[in-house]
């Protein structure tokens, strides 16, 4: 019925055109299209296309990021209508993410947040210089599945342990998983602090998050 509109939606994501994606989302609401249908038959098709182009080496990271940003805007435009209809988008899981206290490096963390959100996770990005307590409280409040915490310095990396311990103290483990990242993080560090996963890059982080949610 709305085939052309759905096609345009997919294309707006492929082109990373956030403005157009937003406009098409509004149009869908005006036409009375079920937002979930707009997402699943329109926008998601575009995300999947960019994802597969990336996998076979035809698309690059900036294209993924732009598609992710366009997707985020499309979904947030549709959210009020979903709320009105009492429906909710199926997500893979909820992730609370931030760079640990004392550390202001955010590029890697932000990239991971974008990739997770583009891949179907609901992401709460608390920014940089975030205390373990703040991360954990947000996780409890949002009933998050994963807390993801980044650090670039060896002196701040040690505080990733605090996140695991704080979740332990609140009795939220092992339900809430912990992912850690940042240049000094190694597999050995992950097992030492009892975290659940790490990745050296954002694409890998999505795979790890999916694994932790039991999605292959």
């Amino acid at each position, binding site marked *: 019925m709305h085939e052309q509109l759905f096609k345009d939606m997919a294309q707006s994501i492929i082109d990373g055109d956030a403005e157009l994606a937003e406009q098409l989302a509004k149009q869908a609401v005006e036409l009375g299209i079920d937002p979930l249908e707009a997402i699943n038959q329109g926008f998601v098709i575009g995300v999947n296309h960019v994802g597969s182009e990336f996998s076979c080496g035809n698309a690059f990271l900036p294209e993924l990021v732009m598609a992710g940003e366009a997707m985020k805007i499309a979904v947030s435009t549709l959210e009020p209508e979903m709320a009105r209809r009492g429906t909710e988008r199926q997500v893979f899981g909820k992730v609370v993410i931030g760079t640990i206290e004392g550390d202001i490096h955010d590029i890697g963390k932000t*990239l991971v947040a974008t990739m997770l959100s583009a891949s179907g996770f609901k992401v709460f990005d608390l920014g940089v210089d975030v205390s373990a307590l703040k991360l954990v409280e947000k996780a409890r409040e949002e009933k998050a599945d994963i807390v993801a915490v980044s650090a670039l*310095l060896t002196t701040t990396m040690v505080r990733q342990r605090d996140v695991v311990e704080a979740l332990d103290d609140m009795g939220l483990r092992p339900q809430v998983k912990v992912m850690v990242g940042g*240049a000094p993080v190694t597999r050995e560090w992950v097992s030492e602090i009892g975290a659940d996963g790490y990745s050296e*890059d954002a694409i890998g982080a999505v795979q790890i998050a999916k694994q932790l949610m039991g999605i292959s």
Partner: protein
Amino acid sequence: MAGKINSVTNPRLKLQLLSPQDIEKIHQATLDVIESVGVRFPSPKALDIWASHGASIDRETSIVKAPGSLVEAALKKAPPIYILAARDSSQDLPLDGNHVFVGTDGCGVEVLDIYSGERRRSRLQDIAEIARVGDFLEEVAFHWVAVSAQDRPPESRGLHELKAVWENSTKHVQTESIYNAREAEVAVEMAAAVAGGRQALRQRPVLSIMQCTAPPLGHDGGSLEAALVAAEAGLPVGFMTMSACLTTGPATLAGNLVVGNAEVISALALIQLAYPGAPVFYAAAQTASDLRSGAYTGGGPEDFLFGAAGNLLSDFYNVPLSMGSFATGAKQPDWQAGIENSLSTFMASIVMSDMLLGVGLLHGSRIWSYAQMLMDCEIFSLVVKIMEGIPVDEESLALDVIKAVGPGGNFLKQKHTLKHMRDLYLPNYMDRRPYNQWEEQKDGAADWALVKARQILETHQPSPLDPVLSAELSRMISTIEEK
């Protein structure tokens, strides 16, 4: 026992990478960015300094917008030439534009164990051992903190690291791992103890300090305040941008130079506003992020070009340069490591970058390898040789010998040959054996380099630090350790 230091000097090679007009365009674009977009200085102290000199500051966002004239005038106060002093004054390093010196890389988090080859987390003892090997090698002119002392508390880690280097080497130390004012204050105190007092330290800075910027267009508050503490004491202070095309900088090389340049010169200007005439240096290790993962690459043609561009900019501002070369992205000492470390070091050397960082780390400055360290030194010695160029004079034209030997003879028996043969380069780690000898052993550069590193570690005795001084340094460190 002071070792000789090998450096590039009196070069005969030149490279025309950017024209004076290109440099001027990059400079003007940079001033435009600093004035109209601003740079983030998240430190109340830094903001106060900018404000008192008439820059526009926003306390909410910590963004400073400074007029180009203010930045330019501040930079003019920086000294163009000074020395990095060593515990042993015969190893002092003149940053005079006529030397290229190499340091160890930093700051890694893992070490390939020198005996077992196993990869493990870095600790204080590694720093001591790497410093001892570096003290021996004539290509290593100064030390960075090569790896992180992860078995020491975070609040005093950077100080334990300094002490370990001083106890094992007489060469200059440049730390890149002190990120707050409190730790910097103790580091200054320690350096003053080594130099023989605050005034002596000012004359002979045995310590210099390098801070990373936070691209794009930002700084870390703790780093800024640590740098201000060091500058007040007269320690040379540098700011290094690692802005990377695609992620923290524009995809275009010139644009990425503008972003990095804005970070570095705004920080150097801040230091000059606070302490006019304080020794500062430009530092850069720019790169292009990987197109697929966005990861730090540690090599590639863009890196090599940035390596040469840095010194053109620092020359324009008339301050010394510390340039990231070596630091391969390779996982082991291999083909990629050889290419990346050779080309990056050659390109940074041909423009006479004052300091190069540095030897020994793999996987984008994360994993220490002694074999890589020694092979990197060999790469540098090759570059030193290449930079000597081809001197042409009566003696080197060798006309008399050519006439004496004539057609069909050989030059092996000539006195001229005996006199000059040692000018020819003799490698330590290149395989020039007959094929059958190689076939029996199937070993190579990395094996030989590792054997040599073990031998140095087992036999080299650096000139020790006075035990009384050592104890004094320990006491200073303990003052900031949480009980």
